């Protein structure tokens, strides 16, 4: 078991750092991509980063409340995707040419 002992221990900090990386990738994707569907996926990435952070804190602080919050975040994410995709279906049915977020700029100031 010398091999097992030489491996570094995974501390909560590692999980938090991974969550930060995931959140940053999601944020960049949301700003860079123009397809609304892919933008939604990037929002999901950011929500997952936050979930990862919640679970890491739940374990490091010994508080199950963090896991309860992750549960609620998942529910809200599911509701958000359902309504968002329904809006996209309604939008694209009316304007089949509006395939990027820039095509839907009627409310731009």
């Amino acid at each position, binding site marked *: 078991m010398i091999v097992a002992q030489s491996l570094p221990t995974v501390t909560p900090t590692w999980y938090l750092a991974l969550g930060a990386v*995931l959140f*940053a990738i999601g944020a960049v994707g949301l700003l860079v991509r123009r397809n609304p569907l892919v933008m939604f996926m990037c929002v999901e990435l950011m929500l997952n980063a936050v*979930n990862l952070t919640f*679970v890491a804190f739940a374990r490091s602080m010994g508080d199950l409340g963090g896991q309860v919050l992750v*549960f609620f975040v*998942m529910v809200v994410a599911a509701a958000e995707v359902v309504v968002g995709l329904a809006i996209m*279906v309604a939008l694209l049915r009316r304007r089949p040419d509006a395939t990027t977020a820039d095509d839907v700029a009627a409310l731009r100031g």
Partner: protein
Amino acid sequence: MEFVVFLIAAAIVVGGALGVLALANPVHSALSLVATLFGVAVLFVAQDAQFLAAVQVIVYAGAIVVLFLFVIMLLGVDRSDDLRVEPVVAQRPLAILSGVGVLAASLVAILAAGGDTATTTVRATATAIPTEEADAASLGRLLFTDHVLAFEITAILLTVAVVGAVVLARRPVRGDDPVDVEAEA
């Protein structure tokens, strides 16, 4: 052992996330998203959150991504993005710059907190995670006692979402739609 699991899962998570970001075809992005979600589920298991890992796979990989793929196929918007088009001048460099800024700020905060999170004493009011007891049981008990009001509100939220989705995605009744009326007039 946890180190090896963390390393593999982290590679899958970051690789999948970069795939969502960089792949031009939305279908490929959705499949990369599945990889990321599975990696996060593995990390949940590694942190003793077995119930959340199961929910993650069922709800995210099973329902949400399938919904994404379904809408992509339904609308036929699976043609690739032209990733070279830049709608706003210097949008891409600024986006990457702000992303790096977010990453740097959060990493600095995490590393400044350092090992504090690991040694934080458990608060007296905290609901301690039972070491051997089933995770789903204690989570369920907490949901239906301390957080029962929030739980009921999520029921309302889901009902509103379902009704909203049906109303939005429904094909408009003929004559009811202002566009149709204009076309006929």
